[in-house]
C-alpha cells in the first residue's frame, strides 16, 4: 500500500498514478477537496505516532508535504519500523538531512518520483504456451506500452528481433512503461500552432500526422497579440505560454506542429522543453526520415525514430559517437538503419541531412557531437526538410 502524506494538487497527481493508495492530509480543507475528487483520504496528522502505527509497516510512505513536516514524519515512521520511505523535496540542499533520517530516495519533481515508483513494476516475464507457438515476434502484441526485450530459451538469453519465431517453452522478458508507449504510439493529441506564416503547410502536415497516428488536433491561431484556441474550456483569447502550461499539466498533448521563419533560440527552447515540436514544410508523406543523435541522452530521439519507423518506414539513425550504440540494445519490433559517423560527425550529419530527407529528428540540446550551433540552426530553418525538434 502507498501512503501519501501531504496536501493539494501535488498529492492528487501522485495518487492518481498509483494504485492502492491512501492520502493522509493534515489540512481539513484540502482533505475534503481531495475526497470530493474521489481519492482515498484520511484527514489526520501523520507525524502523530498513533496514526502511523495503524498502518502495516510494510507499506510505502511517500512524503510530499513541506520539508520540515516530512522530516518529522520520517523520524516517527522510522521508530515505528517503516522501511520503505521516499520523499519529494524541491530543495536539493536538504538531501543530506533526509539521508540522515533514513529516507531512501529524494526526488525533486513529481515526474521523477513517479518514474521511481512505477519503475519497480515495469519488468514482467511471460512464458510461451502452445497458443503463441510458431508466431513471429512482430505479430506478438504485449500491449501499447510494453515491448519484448529478451527471449529466454534453453537456459540462454537471446536478443529478440522482429522475425524471431517464438517456441513453446520460451520465456519472454517484457518491459512496460511510458517510454515504451512513446516509441510505439507517441502522439494522441497534436497542437497546431498557427502564427500567420505558412499556416496552410502547418495544417496539411499536422492533419497527415493526425491521420497516421490516429491523434486528435487542437488548433491555436494568432489573433492580435494572443492566441485563440479550441481547447476545452478556453475558447477565449489565451496567451501561448499559459495554454502550453495547461496542456502540460493536464497531460493532454504530445506534439506541437508549427513553423519558424528565423532563428529564435528562446522561443523554440521554450516549446521544446514542454513538447516535441515539429517545424513543417508542408509534407504529405515522409518517405525518408533521418534522426541525428546529437544528445547525451538520445533516448527521446531514438524513441521518436522508432515510432516514425513504425508508421512511415525507412528511418535512418545517425549516431555521432560509437558509444551511442549501447542505446540500441533493447529495440525489437522496428527496424532502423543505424549508421555511426566515421569521420567528422558535424560534416557527416550535414552530408546526410542534405541527401534528401523529408523529415529530420534532432535535439535542441546538441550536447553531443561537434555540430556547431549556427549549423544546427541552418538545419532547423532549412526549407527542404521538416524538422522534429526534441528536448
Amino acid at each position, binding site marked *: 500500500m502507498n501512503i501519501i502524506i501531504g496536501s493539494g494538487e501535488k498529492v492528487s497527481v501522485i495518487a492518481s498514478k498509483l494504485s492502492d493508495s491512501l492520502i493522509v492530509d493534515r489540512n481539513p480543507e484540502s482533505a475534503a477537496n481531495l475526497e470530493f475528487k474521489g481519492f482515498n483520504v484520511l484527514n489526520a496528522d501523520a507525524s502523530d505516532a498513533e496514526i502511523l502505527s495503524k498502518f502495516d509497516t510494510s507499506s510505502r510512505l511517500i512524503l510530499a508535504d513541506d520539508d520540515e513536516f516530512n522530516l518529522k514524519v520520517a523520524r516517527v515512521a522510522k521508530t515505528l519500523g517503516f522501511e520503505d520511505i521516499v520523499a519529494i523535496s524541491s530543495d536539493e540542499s536538504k538531501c543530506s538531512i533526509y539521508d540522515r533520517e533514513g529516507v531512501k530516495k529524494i526526488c525533486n519533481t513529481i515526474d521523477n518520483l513517479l518514474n521511481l515508483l512505477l519503475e519497480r513494476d515495469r519488468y514482467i516475464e511471460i512464458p510461451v504456451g502452445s497458443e503463441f507457438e510458431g508466431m513471429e515476434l512482430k505479430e506478438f502484441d504485449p500491449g501499447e506500452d510494453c515491448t519484448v526485450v529478451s527471449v529466454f530459451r534453453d537456459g540462454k538469453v537471446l536478443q529478440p528481433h522482429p522475425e524471431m519465431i517464438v517456441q513453446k517453452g520460451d520465456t519472454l522478458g517484457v518491459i512496460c512503461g511510458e517510454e515504451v508507449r512513446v516509441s510505439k504510439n507517441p502522439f494522441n493529441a497534436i497542437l497546431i500552432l498557427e502564427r500567420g506564416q505558412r499556416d496552410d503547410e502547418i495544417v496539411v502536415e499536422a492533419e497527415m500526422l493526425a491521420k497516421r497516428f490516429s491523434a486528435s488536433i487542437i488548433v491555436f491561431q494568432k489573433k492580435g497579440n494572443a492566441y485563440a484556441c479550441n481547447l476545452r474550456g478556453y475558447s477565449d483569447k489565451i496567451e501561448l505560454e499559459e495554454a502550453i502550461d495547461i496542456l502540460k499539466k493536464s497531460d493532454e498533448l504530445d506534439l506541437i506542429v508549427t513553423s519558424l521563419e528565423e532563428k529564435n533560440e528562446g522561443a523554440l527552447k521554450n516549446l521544446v522543453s514542454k513538447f516535441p515540436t515539429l517545424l513543417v514544410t508542408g509534407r504529405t508523406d515522409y518517405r525518408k526520415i533521418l534522426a541525428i543523435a546529437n544528445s547525451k541522452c538520445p533516448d527521446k530521439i531514438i524513441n521518436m525514430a522508432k515510432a516514425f519507423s513504425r508508421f512511415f518506414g525507412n528511418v535512418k539513425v545517425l549516431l555521432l559517437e560509437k558509444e551511442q550504440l549501447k542505446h540500441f540494445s533493447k529495440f525489437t519490433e522496428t527496424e532502423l538503419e543505424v549508421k555511426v559517423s566515421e569521420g567528422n560527425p558535424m*560534416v557527416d550529419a550535414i552530408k546526410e541531412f542534405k541527401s534528401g530527407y523529408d523529415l529530420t529528428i534532432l535535439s535542441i540540446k546538441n550536447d553531443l557531437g561537434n555540430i556547431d550551433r549556427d549549423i544546427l540552426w541552418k538545419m532547423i530553418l532549412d526549407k527542404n526538410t521538416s524538422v522534429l525538434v526534441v528536448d
Partner: protein
Amino acid sequence: MIGQFTTIALISFIAFIAPLLAERVRVPAIVLEIILGAIFGISFLNLIQESEWLSFLSLFGLIFLMFLSGLEIDFDVISKGRDVLSVIAFFLISLSLATFFSFLLNLNLFYAIILTNVAVGVVVSSLREMRLEKEKFGQINIVAAFITDFSTMFLLSLYFLSGINQIIFAFLIIAAFLAAYRFGKLAIWYFPNFVSRWFTDEPSEIGVRGSLAIMILFVGLSSLLGVEAILGAFLAGVLLSLTFRGGKKLYDKLYGMGYGFFIPIFFIKTGSELNLTAEMLSLILTLLLVSFAIKIVPSLIFSGEFGTRSAVAMGLLQSTKLSLTIAGVSIAVAASVISRAEATALISFTVISCLLSPTLFRMVYSTGK
C-alpha cells in the same frame, strides 16, 4: 652532405629512443629529448653538427608544434566550461603579476609572457592520472590551461611584432583568418560531400594534404608580411580546430607527422645548443620561485570553493611549463630578444618546472585528501 645525414640519422635515433627511455624514468618525452640533445650537443659529446638541413627540419618542427598547439585547443571546453569568468580573472592576475616581477627583476617583457604560459598537455595528463579530469576542480584547471595557453601564444606572437607596419600586417593575417573561418563554415554547409573526404581514409590523404596546405599558406603569408611564422602556424591550427571542431582520424595523422618526426628534431636540436654554466643557477631558481608565485596567488580565488590546499595545488599545476615555452625561447633567441645564455637558463628552468610542478601538485593535493 654525408655528415649532414649522419647527424640527422643520430637525431632520428635519439627521437626514437627518447620516449622509450622516458617511459622507464616516468618523465615527459620532451624532457629526455632535450637532455639527450644536450648530451650529444656542444656541451658534451659535440656530435650534433649545425647544418642547413638540420636547421630547416628543426624550424619545420617548430612550425608544426605551433600548428598542432593551435589544433589542440578545444574551443568546446572553453565555450561550455564553467566559471569562465573567474578563470579569465585568474589568467589576468597571473599575467599582471608576471609583468610586475619582470619589471622588478629588470627582465624583458618576454619573460612575463613565458612565465604566464602553461603546458596544457602536462596539466591534462596529471589530472587524468589522479582521476580528476571529470570533476569540477579538474574541469576548471583544464579550462584555465586552455585559456592561458591560447592567450599567451597570442601575446607571444604579438610581442615579436615591431613597428606599426608589422602590427597592421598582423591584423591582415587575423583578417585572413576570420575570412577563412567564414569560408570554411560555408564550405562545410554547401559542400559536405567534399569536406567529408578530409576525414575518411582515402589513399590520397586529401585531409592531410589540405591541412598542410592551409598551414603552409598561413606561414607563407606571415613571412610575406614579415610577421613571425609562428603566428601564421598557430592561427592555421586554431582555424582548423574552430572550423571542424574535431575529427579524430585526421588529427591523429597530423599528430603522427608532427610528433613522430619534425617536432622531436626541434627539441633535440634545442637541447644540443644548451651550454649550461654555474652562473645561471640563480636565474633558474628565481624563475622557478616567480613562476610558482604568479600562479599560486591568483589560484587563491578558488580557495573558497575547493579549500586553500587545493587552490595552492592548482597554482602549482598551472605553473608547469613545457613545449611552448621552449618554442618561445627559441624564437626569442632568433629574434635577438634574449641571449644564448638566457635561453639556456630558460630551457633548463622549463625542464625543471615540468618535472617539479606536477610532482608538487600531486603531493600537495593528495596530502589534503
